[in-house]
């Protein structure tokens, strides 16, 4: 059976897995963005705070994903929960780092003027600084999303969501009928989805980055 036939025959299951994969990754990126931007906002004014936050989120990334999932299972059990926790943690670094870089890169004269003409602290942050840091934050989310598409495959070991289960069951059944097709379908599916998601990020950036700061 060719790969094409395999995909066509099992389209229902594969498309569901693909949808779960993308949707899970997107939700984890959003979660990571909320936490990451919050952390960035809290620390960007202090160089020590920025350094610590970046170092901590880098450290998370050095933990092998397989090991992190394994360590989470005894604590939170199998299923979606450990996968979401792991993916969100991995997604933090690019977002935290880019938020800090983006906010620190805002022209001090602009922030000073915003405060000087009477914007509140929250106003300066939400109407000026975050708007100007937004391209950097969005780039961080894009990098996170690409990374998590791959890492989410590993989440299948914790009985998580998505195409990872195809890849792993294909690999564990190596040699038997359709095992290669199954692993390939899962892997190629992830690659294709990652490209589509990246395209969507480009589109979001076009739509949300203000004209005045677009390159």
């Amino acid at each position: 059976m060719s790969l094409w036939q395999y995909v066509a025959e099992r389209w229902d299951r594969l498309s569901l897995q693909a949808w779960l994969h993308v949707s899970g990754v997107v939700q984890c990126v959003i979660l990571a963005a909320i936490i990451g931007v919050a952390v960035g906002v809290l620390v960007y004014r202090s160089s020590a705070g920025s350094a610590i936050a970046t170092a901590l989120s880098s450290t998370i990334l050095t933990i092998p994903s397989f090991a992190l999932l394994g360590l989470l299972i005894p604590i939170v059990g199998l299923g979606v929960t450990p996968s979401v926790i792991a993916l969100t943690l991995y997604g933090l670094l690019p977002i935290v780092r880019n938020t800090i870089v983006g906010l620190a890169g805002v022209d001090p004269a602009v922030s000073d003027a915003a405060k000087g003409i009477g914007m509140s602290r929250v106003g300066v942050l939400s109407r000026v600084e975050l708007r100007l840091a937004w391209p950097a934050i969005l780039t961080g989310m894009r990098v996170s999303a690409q990374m998590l598409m791959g890492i989410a495959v590993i989440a299948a070991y914790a009985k998580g969501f998505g195409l990872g289960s195809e890849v792993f069951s294909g690999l564990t059944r190596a040699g038997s009928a359709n095992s290669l097709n199954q692993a390939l379908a899962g892997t190629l599916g992830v690659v294709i989805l990652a490209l589509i998601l990246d395209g969507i990020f480009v589109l979001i950036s076009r739509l949300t980055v203000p004209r005045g700061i677009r390159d």
Partner: protein
Amino acid sequence: MTETLDQPTEQGVSGAEIRLEKVTKKYPNTAAPAVEEFSMTIPAGKVVVFVGPSGCGKTTTMRMINRMVEPTSGVITIGGQDALSLDADELRRGIGYAIQQAGLFPHYTVAQNIAVVPGLLKWDKKRIDARVEEMMDLVGLDPGTFAKRLPRQLSGGQQQRVGVARALAADPPVLLMDEPFGAVDPITRGNLQDELLRLQSELGKTIVFVTHDFDEAVKLGDKIAVLGDRSSIQQYDTPDAILANPANDTVAGFVGAGASLKQLTLMRVRDVQYHTDEVLAVGDHERPAAVAEKLTKAGRVYALVLDARKRPQRWVHVRELAGRQDLSTVGKPVGDSVSVQSTLQDALEAILTEGGRAVVTGNRGELLGTIDIDTVTSVIANVREEHAGDEA
């Protein structure tokens, strides 16, 4: 401090008086305060310029007025109201603020930038739109052309104009300006200074202006405060008085060489006694022989030839008249002339290029008189004498 300033102003004053009393700013972990017991009254509707070397605390002092820097101690009142008891954000909405790099919001259009403070004050949309248009006209930017432009599509000078328009949008009584023209080229800078003076003559705001450029201070200030270390006031007086009689060596050093020349920029030809009968004026239809006769009779050697509308045309020496049939080609043309609105500096320039005496003309170019180097030197001598007794 002497109060030599209080001439009544012709236009309305919309500014408010600012008083600072023993205002001190001390940053933690520093031995000396950045600003020490600074007391000053800034009169309503006047431009007061803080000048001083870098790091003297002049900017810190100005920033305490709108509490961008919180004073450690002291009292600041604006129009009689205690600035330190108000909510800082609300206080700032009532004070115009313009800074060196303009600090425009790059993601907002020109119109959106100007609309920020009225928006914060919750004006309704129609009123904001009308105000934005009015402000753009005021600073000389055509709303049709510039309203939708982005800051990065503007030149440095245009950005500064938008910065000033944004600062004035909510019609605040007080305007704080921190080296607003520091980052533009000298020609644009001169234009912006002229515009500010024009604006101020219409608006009558209380303006606190910080600069390290003494010439800018002389040009813009109704009063100048020369500040030294820890924002100590070395002299607080009119530009005239400071130029004529610097209070101490620090001020003298800051005034720099050429105080008299700078003084000349403050005075206009109409303010001085120029000569009205020093030259013999003749019409260009008179016969050369008749002119020569007039000159001999008056004991002069030079005549000034005027056209039918009394505009000066040529200088003629008595020796050049012999044998001529008409006056139109005799002598040398009048080069540089000055009007009554010209500064004495311009007059001096004209005197030097014209070789000792420059023609003074009225609004329609008609001859009013002449000015020479003696007039200029006696004016400077008078000013020096006048301020010699000042206790600074």
